[in-house]
């Protein structure tokens, strides 16, 4: 009986020693970090989530969180310059306002012109602090006096299209320059095509 008890205790002790032997080196290795492990590696292993790209990425960068940034349209509004000429340059460069182009002796809108005016109208609806002047222009091939009337019709066709898309009609004025102020002074179709247009100009708040 005592023998059997001793065997049990002996076996327990041996087990304890084995466990202790197993634990001690583990504790030792924790206290002294391996010198050959680079710190960058550890940080790289922490955020495992971004490696899953594609669709989930937008959800991660836009969390319903307290660190709220402004939505995109407001950022662009705030970065627009106060100077009206600079503002027009920026609006043209970034495509906020896009001119509409026309066929010879025509004031109807092509699909390209409609797309340009749709983009412009969208921007104008978001930026209600600005008013617009639409200039009608013609190429040099017509006669001056008739072209002044044609430019008036072009400017108004562009205006009406944007009004139909929800821009307040009181925010848009029109003027016709006929062939008085060509964008391209050339005398070929490339120049003429550039000069047959409704040119959109921001005229202030």
């Amino acid at each position, binding site marked *: 009986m005592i023998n059997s008890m001793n065997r049990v205790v002996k076996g327990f002790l041996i087990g304890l020693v084995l466990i202790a032997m197993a634990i001690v080196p583990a504790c030792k290795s924790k206290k002294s970090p391996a010198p050959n492990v680079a710190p960058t590696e550890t940080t790289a292993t922490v955020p495992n989530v971004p490696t899953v790209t594609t669709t989930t990425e937008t959800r991660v960068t836009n969390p319903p969180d307290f660190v709220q940034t402004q939505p995109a349209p407001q950022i662009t509004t705030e970065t627009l310059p106060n100077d009206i000429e600079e503002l027009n340059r920026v609006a043209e460069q970034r495509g906020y306002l896009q001119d509409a182009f026309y066929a010879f002796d025509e004031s109807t809108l092509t699909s390209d012109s409609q797309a340009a005016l749709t983009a412009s109208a969208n921007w104008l609806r978001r930026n209600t602090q600005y008013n617009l002047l639409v*200039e009608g222009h013609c190429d040099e091939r*017509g006669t*001056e006096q008739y072209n*002044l*009337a044609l430019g008036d019709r072009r400017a108004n066709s562009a205006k*009406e299209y944007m009004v139909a898309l929800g821009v307040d009609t009181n925010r848009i004025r*029109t003027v016709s320059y006929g062939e008085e102020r060509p964008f391209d002074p050339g005398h070929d179709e490339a120049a003429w095509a550039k000069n047959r247009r409704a040119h959109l100009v921001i005229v202030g708040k």
Partner: protein
Amino acid sequence: MIRHPLIRPSATFSRGRRLSYSAPSPWVRGCVVTLILFLANSLHAQTQIHPEINRQQAAAIVRIAVPRPETILPLEAIESPFFAPLTRDLAASGVFAIAPIPPNIPANADLAKAANAEFVLALKITQDGADTILEARLITATGLTPFGRRYRGVPAVLTRMAHMLANDLVREMNGQPGIFLSQIGFASNRTGHFEIWLMDWDGTNQRQITTHNALAILPSWSADNDRMAYTLFSGGRSEMYIINRRGGGRIHVQTGVGLNTSATFSPISNDIAFVGSVAGNPDIYVIRDDSTNLRRLTSSYSIESTPEWSPNGRQISFTSGRSGTPQIYVMDAEGTNVQRLSFEGEWNDDATWSPDGEQIGYTSRVSGRFQIRIANVITRQSRIIAGEGSNEQPTWSPDGRWIAFQSNRSGAWQIYRMRIDGTDLTQLTFDGENKEPDWSKKAE
């Protein structure tokens, strides 16, 4: 208010009024009547064949010798301000042919014989205090003096005296006033901006009459030659303005509609016809010069443009795209009775009436280029006056013999003048770009 120093009355007109006219003696008048009767009689037989051509041919054979004036003044004080414009006027009159002058013969009947001329124009310029006095006499080969007249004014009006004398000589021959005091209004960008300018009929004396530093175009004379309407682009708007040579500043005609281009004065009332636009529909409108009584004359959805009154004020020509291309139409001044006038050419515009109301000149595209076309209002038959480049915006001289127009044949828009048969082409402007000529309505 912007002043127009060059058309203030004090500049030219008050001085001009000081020119005096001494009526010819009864004897001279008798001679003139005889001469006119003689000319009328000689013309009458030919009239039945082809009146227009023969009247001009008969008039063109009046040879006149014009020796330099007898004067104590230095030659350079007379030559370019007086003698050059006088001989230029007479040579272009369509009435006189200037005869070469044999040397060393005084200005009398002998000179007429020697030069084989019907008349010698004997000129004498003297000084009387501050005034310069011009005496002009026509002397025939037989020693008669059918015309004698004296002009007085300060030296600055010598050129005006030359034009007046030429006008009087033309009237003496054919009963029609000369055009040598008429003016051509136009738009020029030689200052960097298009402004309204004026020049004498021969292209001299070019002067700026607006200073907007913006875009001022399309000048148009009133029937009395006192006012000019034009379109000013400023602040993204185009508006109608009137300036008056007798002062009063610039008047803004408030139409209440857009565009306000192609303004043109009625020859018989205070109305101004122009192109107005509401919601992108350009139409012909009429408004009184005090900005009241706006009326819309056309109501087509197509583009209407470029109105011009007939000389009697009863009709208005205009351009309309209602047929698919710009064409010339004529309507009654109330907007009724619209009739199409032009059927040739795929783009016609800029109609302008001859002073007698029988013809309309307009810009007409032929083979891709614009040319001046002249059409008979009744028969609608037309002919082209062809030239190099594009030729646009014709305007008739008050005597109906000349047309001024703009052409880009030199590479830039310039104003030219020619006879209505296309001959005697003369370039009138050279600096910058010059366009939209409008010839004054009265010979004055």
